[in-house]
């Protein structure tokens, strides 16, 4: 087993990486919400079909995936060097770089910078990193109002809701619900607003335009940061991000340290992989790139906040670190049969779905998200869809092993499951014991009461028979048949 090196993980009590209840309990509520189920099934199947069509257009798709994986693997191996290279390049072009050990430090840095700029309102382009650290809450506590400007993030913010998807944060809402939220929360909304998508977008546009023109501080995340040039890159669809990145005098970008890529040429690989994997488009409408500060053009003060918040802890696990390769395309969510039925809220973290199930526990420490590595049937659809070939099923299995090993160290008395697994191993390690157990298992035939199927099993197998019958153990095992009817009694 790899040794856990004890690097600091994301602190408790701040940000949105931990749910209030384990996945199965949160999932139960989502499963019972027929509207949510319908919204998710419709949205994910639409994106799945679009993605499949545009991916099929590229004859070199597999080679691109391999290249993306190789760049990320090499970058993680030398992350410290690339980050320092990035810092120097950003500073050389007139930007400032801040290193944030965790969510609290990052929130303090951004709050202080906003205060120093004299702002009480900021506009934000959709940023998972700032959501991860709970920046809006920290700003609010300091008397600063943050306005989300990505349409879906705006819907989530106005609805006093949580995002449920990496790319489409309001995927759990349909247009009728969005209309109601706008009418209730948007002071400047037209009372005659319909649920026509164009009308809803127009209402948001009018609402946001005023914010863009008055805000003096913009806050963003970043999709990529190029170490060799110090260039930051944000990929989006609406153009609201472009407004945030260019109109305010001060721009603060909060970026997880894993987003750095070595060279400008590397960006070419990811700009082919990301739009096709995420929105199912050949190219996204808006790609903004900036390097430091350009006098007289755009923000005159630029701050880059490099966020760790558990990433170095993930990096310390040579297997687990591949979760840091993620480029946040959300293809794995859209193909995941579990996500499609539970939605993102059940995962409790800003990072939901398959990638969230392997990333969140590593950022927080497994014990704080212990149910997530088990929130998968290991069907492998996510691995096939991942543009940088993160082997999510293998990572889930790896994190389950880490969880079991850590629990074993922490507990004086082994869990019932651990005892069962150890007993099963002992039985199966020896063919005589195994045969004896098979024969004893035939007593289970009594549970069938003479019929071919069992409708009620004792715990923990009762979870099976709540919705499924179980087969009655066979009258004759294969071994018995092989010995008697077949041949050599070895």
């Amino acid at each position, binding site marked *: 087993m790899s040794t856990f090196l004890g690097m600091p993980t994301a602190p408790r009590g701040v940000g949105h990486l931990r749910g209030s209840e384990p996945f199965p309990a949160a999932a139960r509520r989502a499963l019972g919400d027929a509207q949510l189920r319908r919204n998710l099934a419709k949205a994910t199947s639409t994106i799945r079909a679009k993605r499949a069509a545009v991916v099929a257009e590229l004859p070199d798709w597999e080679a691109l995936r391999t290249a993306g994986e190789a760049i990320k693997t090499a970058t993680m191996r030398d992350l410290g060097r690339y980050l320092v290279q990035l810092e120097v390049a950003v500073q050389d072009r007139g930007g400032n770089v801040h290193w944030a050990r965790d969510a609290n430090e990052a929130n303090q840095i951004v709050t202080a910078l906003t205060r120093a700029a004299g702002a009480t309102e900021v506009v934000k382009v959709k940023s998972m990193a700032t959501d991860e650290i709970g920046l809006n809450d920290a700003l609010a506590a300091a008397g600063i109002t943050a306005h989300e400007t990505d349409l879906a993030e705006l819907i989530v913010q106005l609805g006093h809701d949580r995002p449920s998807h990496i790319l489409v944060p309001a995927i759990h809402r349909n247009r009728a619900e969005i209309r109601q939220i706008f009418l209730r929360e948007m002071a400047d909304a037209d009372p005659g607003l319909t649920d026509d998508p164009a009308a809803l977008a127009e209402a948001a546009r009018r609402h946001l335009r005023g914010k863009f023109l008055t805000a003096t501080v913009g806050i963003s995340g970043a999709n990529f940061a190029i170490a060799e040039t110090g260039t930051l890159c944000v990929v989006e669809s609406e153009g609201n991000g472009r407004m945030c990145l260019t109109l305010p005098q001060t721009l603060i970008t909060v970026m997880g340290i894993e987003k750095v890529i070595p060279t400008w040429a590397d960006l070419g690989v990811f700009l082919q992989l990301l739009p096709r994997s995420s929105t199912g488009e050949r190219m996204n409408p808006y790609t903004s790139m900036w390097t430091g500060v350009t006098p007289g053009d755009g923000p005159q003060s630029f701050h880059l906040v490099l966020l760790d918040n558990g990433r170095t802890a993930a990096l310390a696990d040579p297997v687990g670190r591949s979760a840091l390769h993620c480029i946040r395309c959300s293809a794995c969510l859209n193909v995941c049969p579990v996500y499609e039925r539970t939605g993102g809220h059940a995962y409790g973290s800003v990072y939901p779905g398959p990638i969230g199930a392997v990333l969140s526990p590593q950022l927080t420490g497994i014990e704080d998200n212990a149910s997530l*590595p088990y929130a998968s*049937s*290991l069907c492998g*659809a996510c691995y096939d869809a991942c543009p940088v070939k993160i082997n999510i099923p*293998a990572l889930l299995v790896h994190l389950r092993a880490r969880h079991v090993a850590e629990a074993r160290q922490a507990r004086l008395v082994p869990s019932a499951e651990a005892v069962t697994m150890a007993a099963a191993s002992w039985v199966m390690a020896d063919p005589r014991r195994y045969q004896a157990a098979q024969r004893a298992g035939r007593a289970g035939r009594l549970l069938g009461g003479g019929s071919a199927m069992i409708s009620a099993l004792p715990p923990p*197998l009762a*979870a099976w028979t709540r*919705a*499924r019958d179980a087969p009655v153990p*066979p009258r004759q095992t294969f071994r018995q048949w092989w010995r008697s009817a077949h041949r050599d009694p070895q």
Partner: protein
Amino acid sequence: MFPDVARATVTVLERLGHRVDFPLQQTCCGQMHVNTGYQREALPLIRRYVDTFERHEVIVAPSGSCVGSIAHQHAMVARRHGDDQLARRAEAVARRTFELSQLLVDVLGVEDVGASYPHRVAYHPTCHSLRLLRVGDRPLRLLRRVSGIELVPLPDAEVCCGFGGTFALKNSEVSTAMLADKMRNVLATGAEVCTAGDSSCLMHIGGGLSRLRAGVRTVHLAEILASTADRPATTGSGR
């Protein structure tokens, strides 16, 4: 748990003229342990698998997920526990271990196994057969050559049925929601039989269909391939 499937596998291979051995020293591949996080407990089972099968020419298992575990997990677990020698041996044995449709189509070069099965059948490609082993359309190529069979396409066939080993217990409600959609698709085909290359997935789908008294049964691919006009399959996974 499923002796009919193992018997059917023997029947098919012997009908094709091969000698089948069943080493009685074998037990379990250890997949349940590995996938639930108990790699240390899987180690003796992996060692037993390698010890038992190392001397055999070609190994077959009528289960995509067991073969998937042997191919993708055995060496990994051995290596992670510092046993590089076992890992190398495990890799060598894994290269000679095949899922039934792989063995028939790729190794033995057969698609028509001389079977007869006059029923309306929907084929569910299980996740580990499909995405771990990449068996592709091999099971369908075998089924298409079965005399009398009426194969019907299963909508959303490649979506997981929701079994997932201990997932079906730990997340039984999500698992059930996935099963509901799989059953809806199976029922929509009008098939009388749902088949697959994994007994565990069939136990899940079949358990749901049985609970609903849906009147559709699950039958393993091996049982269909073993069935002939002279010796038709029993009602399927019968016991």
